[in-house]
């Protein structure tokens, strides 16, 4: 499905089953990873929190006004979910603060302002970079993150990606270009766009 956030929410409110399937498969893994990055030792809790967030989101879907991107809204609900459940645990309070938690970075992710002349290999710190890469892939609008993974990790051809998405190879080429651009901007924002340093 190729829908804007608003269109997807409208379709869900109409009871469109395809929209539900798309919504679930698009956002459940992303929310799981969002939670897991904050509680790396507890995959089961991250799964439960992602599930709880989706349930809360669907129950309060009429409250989504489209003022923020759908994933940003879901992340806000996810933070509340984590906070509510981990009141008793110290894990949440001692969890490392991630770049995505910074309001200015979240705002920047929303706007995805263009940056020029930035070389991603200049980002420092392998683990921090890895975390930022994975987070950036999740923040990309669908299906950019998937296309980049299919292309670069699974070595799928343009034809294979086109068949998977039900689009022409030409359209996929254009999508890939936009996906790279969006990734560059998002990753730059998440990693702070540090000017010095190379990947180890």
């Amino acid at each position, binding site marked *: 499905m190729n829908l804007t956030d608003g269109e997807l929410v409208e379709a869900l*409110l109409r009871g469109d089953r395809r929209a539900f399937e798309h919504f*679930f498969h698009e956002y459940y*893994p992303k929310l799981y990873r969002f939670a897991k990055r904050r509680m790396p030792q507890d995959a089961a809790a991250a799964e439960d929190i992602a*599930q709880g967030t989706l*349930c809360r989101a*669907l129950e309060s879907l009429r409250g989504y006004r489209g003022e923020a991107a759908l994933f940003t809204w879901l992340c806000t609900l996810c933070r509340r979910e984590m906070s509510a*459940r981990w009141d008793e645990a110290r894990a949440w309070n001692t969890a490392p603060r991630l770049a995505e938690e910074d309001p200015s970075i979240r705002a920047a992710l929303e706007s995805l302002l263009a940056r020029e002349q930035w070389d991603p290999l200049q980002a420092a710190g392998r683990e921090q970079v890895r975390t930022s890469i994975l987070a950036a892939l999740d923040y990309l609008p669908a299906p950019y993150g998937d296309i980049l993974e299919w292309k670069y990790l699974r070595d799928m051809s343009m034809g294979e990606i086109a068949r998977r998405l039900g689009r022409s190879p030409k359209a996929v080429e254009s999508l890939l270009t936009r996906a790279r651009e969006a990734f*560059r901007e998002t990753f730059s924002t998440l990693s702070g766009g540090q000017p010095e340093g190379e990947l180890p």
Partner: protein
Amino acid sequence: MSTDPDRSIETLIRLAGEREMPSDEATARARAAAEASWRAMLADKPPQRRSRLPLALAAALTLAVLGWYAWTPRVVVQPSVLVARVVTVDGAARIARGRELQIARRDHDLMSGVILQTGQGRAAATIAHALSLRLDHDTRLRFDGRDHVTLLEGSLYVDSGGLGLGPPLTISTPAGDVRHIGTQFQIRVSGDTTGIRVREGRVALRRGATLARTVAAGDALEIRGAEEHWRHGLPSFGADWEWSAALAPALAIEDRPMVEFLAWMAREHGWQLHFGDEALQRQAQEIHLHGSLDGLDAAAMLARVALVTGVPLTLDDGVLWVGAR
């Protein structure tokens, strides 16, 4: 160092590797829970716009109501609110409101103040389409409000759907107030003895304003007056739990992936789910079931699904094996 930005992106993505995915079992569980929430949201109609009365008429009505309100002696009556709905009745069950007694049926609304009592039958109710309350034989449960019930006697099984899920609920018992933190547990009240046994997650027992005890998965606590008796390391499956599985809402399997059926069975019966290999796990995601399993017990459901899918399903000491062991 490459300066080609596209090449750099490829390098970065290869460096990071594939994004982590939640387990298939969790995905199946989450999908079922999300679908239930979605359907509940669709079932709740959005607020209707009020029809507009002519302004003068509306003003006159307002004045009349205000006048009546100001001059009439007031008796405060707590409005009755919808707390839960009956979803399953096995045998006979009744709903009592004061002296009035009626036979409980499926889809019967349970308003605040009513008592659901089972006698020789059993019954299950749901709160907000999310929290499952199941009553064993000879049980009386009073619905006090949207987030509060009182177990007067008998055995109650509660399933909130997952850690921290389901609406908040306090269950009053002679031993104190039990609050679910998650997720599957049963309470038994017999005279002045209260027993709490947790299958998954934790429950908190409060007496007065202080937290008295936390009972975790595998634990059982029995309280009689000041006496406490603890047991630990109890299995999550077996005869003590099976009565509640018999009251579980039926799973509609039509066009549902086999893995969701397996996850549902494992959850309802407290089993662990094990796949023989990764190929079988993928196969269970891809196979979609058709038809209905209504009226079948657990063993018959497993036999039916194994037969139509060709995937062997074996139950051994609380473990549901999918494929060869």
